[in-house]
């Protein structure tokens, strides 16, 4: 039993105003600024900035989901994985059509200012998460 319990990750996907998802997982795949990292139980402590805005999680029940986590970061320590992003969202909660429309609007506005660029990144992350879920 002790071995079994050591073979999963305690994952928390946390947005600024609420905890989006919390549970046990077999693997977490996140894209940091240096590329994709897959995190398995027993991973060394890590702090990384996320880029691209999606995180993939396979839970202990073999469920698979994608979450949008634009501009977030990931922290791993003692088999505890925390993914923090202000606007974290579960992929299956996102309406793909709507997300695409928002992305188009954001792209049309351009990305000259920081706020506009942020908006584009947020919209991209949502579309990507919704696409991967579908």
């Amino acid at each position, binding site marked *: 039993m002790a071995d079994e319990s050591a073979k999963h990750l305690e994952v928390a996907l946390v*947005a600024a105003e*609420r905890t989006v998802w919390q549970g046990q997982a077999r693997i977490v795949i996140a894209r940091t600024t240096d590329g994709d*990292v897959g995190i398995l139980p027993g991973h060394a402590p*890590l*702090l990384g*900035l996320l880029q691209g805005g999606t995180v993939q999680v396979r839970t202990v029940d073999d469920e698979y989901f994608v979450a949008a986590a634009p501009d977030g*970061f990931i922290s791993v*320590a003692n088999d505890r994985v925390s993914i923090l992003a202000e606007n974290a969202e579960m992929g299956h909660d996102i309406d793909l059509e709507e997300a695409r429309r928002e992305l188009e609007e954001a792209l049309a506005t351009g990305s000259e200012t920081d706020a506009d660029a942020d908006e584009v990144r947020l919209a991209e992350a949502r579309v990507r998460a919704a696409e991967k879920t579908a």
Partner: protein
Amino acid sequence: MPANLRELRDRKASVSTIKKLTRAMELIAASRIVKAQQRAQAAGPYARELTRAVSAVATFSNVDHPLTTEKADPKRAAVLLITSDRGQAGAYSANVIREGERLNQMLREDGKDVVPYLSGRKGIAFYTFRQREVAQSWSGDSDAPSFARAREMADALIEAFLTPTEDGGVDEIHIVFTRFVSMLTQRADVIRLLPLEVVEGEEAPAADDVLPLYEFEPSAEEVLDGLLPKYVASRIHYCMLQAAASELANRQRAMKSATDNAQDLIEKLTRDLNQARQAQITQEISEIVGGASALADANAGSE
């Protein structure tokens, strides 16, 4: 004492209406406090993880970040004053504004210029009435602050902080807000936001909770670069949530005493009303009795 019956009746009716109003406001505030506390709780995990991560980076890397560096000779200080949008909350706004004035005074005595940033219409009204210059102000959601708003404030403040002092930037940033200690106690409080003191977390980590040796991706500097602005926003959000809960608690208390006062007034008016009515009846009876005896006297005289 106005002896007029109708006048008393009107006053009683209007006080009853006021009582109903304040009672309703009290109940609304009471139910919103619960929500405000839930929001504060929901924001807890994010703030906790962020604090942990930031202190991890700060502990294991000797990076100097502009946001954590103290300037040698601080000349200008920004003060973010968090007040409420609406009144009817007792001395809530007055208290936090007074605390802000105290801080301003202190900063000026230290030879620093004060650059005010305001949140909440009450604070804005206080400053515009005195025709003071305000760097930037926000209002509209003081009793349910969103993270987006906190982020907006953080961006503005960080930008001011990173601007050189000569170009209108500031050297330090303070927040004046009301801390929600309990339902009964809320205290106006000041914290220094920037330069950051990372160690000062809201909850001290337990003694056995040793921070592990982290790997950083891509590098400690860049991670810190990404984290600190988020940390600042999260601190501001924390202050705003505390202020919102305090505002609602103050409003509930103020409305409760208003309701009690209205009740007292109603009781007093009822007594006055009864007395006036009784006096009128007594007068009528004595008039009738007087009239009857006068009649009897007249009749007795004629027989």
